[in-house]
């Protein structure tokens, strides 16, 4: 099988520090590969090598079947790159940014303008189209950056932390756009610090830390191993009655935490209203209740037995 993105034993050193210490990645055409990891894990370095911006020190990488070192020009014809730091020209308007890229890719003026107008509409930037990109909000900037990377209709798109620092609404907008790209047949490599984002978008997730692959699998597989969401309640009284109801409704044995906190894995979202209804019927009032996702740290711990901040294995 020919992968759209493929690396074998990828190594990159900066001084005596290894940013990548042998990474294997593989993304079939039309899939979304999520590369998940904390700051400094090596995600950006991997993207920069695949986008032909940096040469690897060891191993090999191919994009669309072309080796990134031997045939960078071929790779560049296939890819779109969205950086972690929005790399649009702040002194140009959104429209001018898009037209410039179209012209650079060899489009005629009318064609470049038409493509810019279509992307501005698709990315909900029409109102700000003729304002300098430097005046855009964080979310608008990321959307413009993504639009710019899609001008040439690339078949392979690299998105390096496209939603870091965005508010939930702007993040949801970007997720919608990523899904549309995939629906149109593009292969996407997405790096992220958020387990939830990888879960929402990726077909396969590779968890990397300190330049090595710590775990890989489908979101379902990784979540099963990392532990899914948990329903937490803290009854004000009748703790035993609450525990019985929780066990009965969820079919799980509740975990007793500190200060009377009870928690169970939440496998089905419909379960929590049922729990609250039964508790109310039984006259048990709650001091606190929450649905909590595992944090990236907890997921790391569960998946690798190490923490993100230091190796404990």
């Amino acid at each position: 099988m020919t992968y759209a993105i493929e690396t074998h034993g990828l190594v990159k050193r900066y001084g005596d520090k290894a940013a990548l210490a042998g990474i294997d990645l593989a993304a079939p055409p039309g899939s979304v590969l999520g590369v998940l990891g904390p700051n400094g894990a090596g995600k950006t370095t991997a993207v920069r090598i695949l986008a032909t911006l940096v040469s690897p020190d060891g191993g090999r990488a191919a994009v669309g079947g072309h080796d990134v070192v031997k045939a960078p020009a071929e790779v560049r014809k296939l890819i779109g790159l969205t950086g972690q730091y929005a790399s649009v020209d702040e002194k140009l308007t959104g429209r001018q940014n898009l037209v410039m890229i179209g012209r650079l890719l060899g489009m005629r003026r009318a064609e470049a303008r038409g493509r810019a107008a279509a992307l501005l509409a698709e990315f909900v930037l029409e109102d700000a189209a003729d304002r300098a990109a430097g005046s855009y909000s964080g979310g608008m900037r990321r959307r413009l950056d993504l639009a710019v990377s899609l001008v040439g209709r690339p078949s392979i798109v690299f998105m390096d932390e496209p939603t870091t620092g965005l508010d939930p609404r702007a993040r949801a907008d970007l997720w919608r756009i990523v899904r549309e790209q995939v629906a149109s047949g593009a292969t996407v490599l997405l790096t992220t610090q958020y387990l939830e984002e990888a879960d929402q978008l990726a077909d396969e997730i590779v968890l990397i830390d300190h330049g090595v692959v710590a775990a890989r699998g489908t979101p379902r597989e990784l979540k099963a191993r990392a532990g899914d969401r948990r329903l937490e309640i803290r009854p004000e009284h009748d703790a035993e009655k609450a525990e019985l109801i929780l066990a009965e409704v969820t079919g799980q044995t509740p975990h007793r935490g500190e200060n009377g906190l009870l928690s169970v894995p939440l496998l089905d979202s419909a379960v929590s209203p049922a729990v609250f209804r039964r508790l109310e019927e039984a006259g048990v009032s709650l001091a606190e209740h929450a649905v909590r996702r595992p944090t990236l740290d907890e997921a790391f711990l569960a998946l690798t037995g190490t923490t993100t901040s230091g190796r404990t294995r």
Partner: protein
Amino acid sequence: MTAVPSTTGHRGALAQGMTLAWRSLVPLRNEPGRLVQFLLQPVFMVVVFVLMFGAMSGDTEHAARFLLPGVLVQVALISTNATGMNLAEDIVNGVFDRFRSMPIARSAPLVGRVTADALTTAVTIAVALLAGIAAGFRITASPLGTLAGLALLLLFTLALSWVSAWLGLKAKSVASMQGVATAVLLPLTFGSSAFIPPANLPGVLRWWSSVNPVSHLADAVRALLTGAPVGPHVWVTLAWAAAVTACFVPLAVRAYTRRIR
């Protein structure tokens, strides 16, 4: 993405360079405030150096004849600062990473930048010349001599803009680029015969002014605009421009292709 045509040919590279030159100039249209600053500076230099310093000397007409060519050299060389600063800015904010990930000629971003800056420099020189004429400078050379003087100035400036490009590509930040460029440009322009004849300077300054290539440039431009005998200055200036270009175009291109963060 089969729709993208081959872009490795020279026609492609040239068109891409022009697109990127457009990109460098269009902010002037977007924000007329930038335009005002960039047109006002040469006028201000003429007011200070030709009118005010000229008034100090008593003979304002003679002063204008001597000082205006110096101001032209000064504003032209200072304007090369923009090349490196804009390149450093593009590197720091990630615009260059985008260009480098695209199927375009490697040289296009550099060529576009230098072309745009040559155009703005030409406008700056023209504004300074018009302001100088308003301030009492008279071109006494033939039209051909005048054009030759302006062309020589532009050629030398272009050579220097590759030094600026190299500095900008090597710099860690926009501010450090600006610092280094100022440290290079101030002694080159002020420590030359642009404003004061070397014979009037003491010791080390006289020596520096006499070996400084900008002195040859200033003397050549002054002679060409006023129809005076040019002596060896034109050829020395051309030799310097050729040497600087031959050194710094390859250096800048290499710094550009190796610029890896």
